[in-house]
């Protein structure tokens, strides 16, 4: 009985696992994660759920990043204009 069950379990698990394959981009993602650790947090599921930056801006657009300057009791709120194209260059 054990032999039959062993064979059965082994075949079922191997066949089940064989139906799924890792992404063909896994190696590329791994090597990116090594050189740029921020990619590590971009897991498959999170990447799939993120809207693409291309959906809402182009490299020619400018965005305004909020910033605060503090000196003593004096605080100044600022909005820094940043060119998307230069951000992309920075990320690469």
């Amino acid at each position, binding site marked *: 009985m054990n032999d039959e*069950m*062993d064979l059965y*379990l*082994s075949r*079922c*698990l*191997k*066949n089940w696992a064989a139906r799924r394959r890792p992404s063909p981009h896994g190696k590329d993602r791994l*090597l990116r994660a090594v050189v740029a650790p921020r990619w590590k947090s971009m897991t*498959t599921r999170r990447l799939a759920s993120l809207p693409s930056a291309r959906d809402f801006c182009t490299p020619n657009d400018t965005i305004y990043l909020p910033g605060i300057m503090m000196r003593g009791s004096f605080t100044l709120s600022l909005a820094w204009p940043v060119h998307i194209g230069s951000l992309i260059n920075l990320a690469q």
Partner: protein
Amino acid sequence: MNSGEHQDLVLQLQQGSLDALGQFYDQYQRMVYRTALVITGDPDAAEDLMQDVFLRLYRFADHIDPLRPLEPWLYRMTVNLSYTWMKRNRRWLRPLEDLAEWLTGGRQSPHEVAEAQDDWDRVQRAVSNLPFPQRVVIVLYYLNDLSLQDISEILEVPVGTVKSRLHYGRQALRKSLEGLMDGEALPSLDYKGS
């Protein structure tokens, strides 16, 4: 890959070679992916865990002994990271899944029904319901064809403990799969190991 090539590759990895990491990835990715996949039952998690295993291989390459095979280290890391993943995710994921199933009245698409009815899937789900220590032994033994001695070294527990987990795991599986094996042909074997 012979042992000389393996040693060279580990030494290259220790010097930070990305090419060596890529070669190890090519060689072991399916082994790591399938182990994580059957332990977690979640293809996305298996993919993320696989990446984490190889990242750690790169980061901790200095701790790898070039004279020893790499598989036990990879298995141990896969099991440990899968355990961490299960602990972190299952705590809140399972109730959410139960709630979603309850809200949808447990409705499944024809494809899901067909898949849920096949033996492979039922066995995988039965394995997923085992306690983690038994599940890991069952996966390493049946999926990866490792010996009790190998499993004992990977998990760093006595062989007797491995035997006992295998015994109770088998018993639980037999109970949950009762009737499935009787009078049914075994599924065809189309698995090719890594």
